């Protein structure tokens, strides 16, 4: 190898602090997720409920045109906060969100641990919080696309199809509920995924963990609930806890007769533990061994 004299010259520009120093991390995370095999299939699968519910909103405003299709089942097409709750807390959507997490989140930290990339990140003017924000924003991006964005689109389309603001006047708090639940579920899943991703250097194990913890918590709840018939076992299930909180936020009847605050405390505690663990697991100073 010979040294290429022409290849190196000093850079004339000035290094500056950016407003979003973590954005390159997020941009790369989003791009690399889209490049993954089968991701697009799962991602568009996760958008299917949104399409179905959007069509439902359209039909609800054109009931006369579609009476031959829906016959007497008009209740199904009553667009109210319950309709939104059904979308946000549906089993299928939650499952697809977990599938998205496997694609976009499993390697976020585990790959950096495996390939010692933390040393490269923290030798830059990047703080630990900014690093985590960059990683978590990848999850925010994908989950907001299947929660917050469709939710707000439903609301706006309902107003457009109706041609008046009656719906908004009836439920002025609904946009806040949409934003609140979307942020809560996304924040929880982001911390949940980053925590699991930091447990192993092998992204396959992390993928299994992301699915297993979600599915098994629900299976265990099902078994105990089947035996003891106590609704308190619902607190074991991540899915049911999110559904309980969702029902509360959208002002609907709770699926299980236990206070919603218990579910909130469970979700909050898991998120807090994950955040504390991440803070202690990733240390900037260890980049120099």
């Amino acid at each position, binding site marked *: 190898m010979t040294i*290429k004299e022409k*290849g190196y010259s000093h*850079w004339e520009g000035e290094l500056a*602090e950016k407003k979003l120093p973590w954005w390159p991390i997020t941009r790369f995370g989003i791009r690399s997720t889209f490049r993954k095999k089968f991701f697009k299939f799962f991602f568009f699968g996760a958008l299917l409920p949104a399409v179905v519910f959007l069509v439902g909103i359209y039909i609800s405003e054109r009931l006369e045109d579609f009476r031959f299709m829906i016959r007497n089942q008009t209740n199904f097409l009553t667009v109210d906060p319950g309709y939104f709750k059904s979308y946000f807390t549906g089993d299928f959507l939650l499952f697809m969100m977990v599938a998205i997490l496997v694609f976009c989140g499993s390697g976020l930290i585990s*790959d950096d641990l495996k390939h010692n990339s933390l040393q490269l990140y923290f030798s*830059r*003017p990047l703080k630990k919080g900014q690093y985590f924000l960059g990683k978590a924003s990848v999850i925010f991006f994908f989950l907001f696309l299947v929660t917050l964005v469709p939710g707000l689109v439903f609301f706006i389309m309902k107003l457009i199809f109706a041609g008046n603001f009656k719906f908004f006047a009836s439920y002025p708090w609904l946009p806040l509920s949409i934003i609140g639940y979307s942020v809560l579920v996304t924040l929880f899943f982001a911390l949940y995924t980053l925590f699991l991703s930091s447990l192993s250097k092998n992204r396959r194990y992390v993928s299994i963990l992301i699915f297993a913890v979600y599915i098994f918590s629900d299976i265990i709840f099902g078994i105990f609930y089947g035996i003891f018939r106590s609704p308190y076992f619902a607190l074991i299930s991540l899915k049911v806890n999110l559904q309980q909180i969702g029902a509360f936020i959208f002002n609907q009847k709770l699926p299980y007769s236990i206070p919603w605050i218990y579910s909130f405390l469970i979700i909050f505690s898991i998120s807090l533990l994950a955040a504390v663990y991440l803070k202690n697991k990733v240390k900037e100073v260890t*980049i120099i061994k």
Partner: protein
Amino acid sequence: MSIEVNDLHFSYGKVKALSGVGLDLEEQAIGLLGPNGAGKSTLLRILLGFLSPDEGEGKVLGYDIKEQQSLIRRHVGYMPEDDCFIPGMDAVTFTSYFGELSGMPRQEAMKRAHEVLYYVGLEEGRYRLLETYSVGMKQRLKLAQTLVHDPKLLFLDEPTSSLDPQGRKEILELIKDISSKKDIQVLISSHILPDIEAVCSHVVILNKGQIAAQGEISKLKELKYRLYEMKVKGEAQSFLEKLKKMGCRIEATEDMILKVYMRPNKNPQEIFRLASEERIQIRHFVKSQSTLEDLFAKAVGVD
């Protein structure tokens, strides 16, 4: 001054890692040496702003090590010892990515990435996925990401570890070029002393958290002692004892060569006089160049 620290003290709990370290470095290439546990990593951590010293103060490139850590990391380049990369990236994306994280605009970072990859000799493989890179290529890539934002000072941690002789030669050639022709200062922490000797003009030797020696390598070697190599025939025990009494340090190599470290104020003819007294034949006698290894051993007290 690029690195200026005074009376640095740092402890990990009860374990004292640095004790009264003071440095004033402005040379182009400096070697940082020391046995394991000497405090090299702690010093680097403090210089990069990851640890704040218990006592003492200092500046790196004019930025305070206690207050302006982020600015220090923006303007220096750090090349870690470990093999590190990001899977799924090619070299251009990887290099420009870290340029952006250092504060460069995206387009500029991309342009610079091509330039530095060309400079380190990775122009042909720059669009290949990093997972397919050899150890030597990864090492050059690490150097490229260190250079992308055009730092004024580089910290290189074991830059030639795990390289074959050819790869090692190439990296050293690059480092030498960077420090001598590109107006970039380099601080190399390494255990491979010939590498330091090949690249650096100055050296800092740490031992037990303190500076054991620092300065220009050639002067350090000259001032402390002169080195002679000899082969003798006969019962040398008493001869060697007398040499030691005279203040010489003796080292026997595996091929039966005796290395005699003599103070500069002593006359080498004394060796012959003593040999004559003890009826010892000196069959080989040359004035040898003392190596950095000799200096290191002396500084850290290893005989």
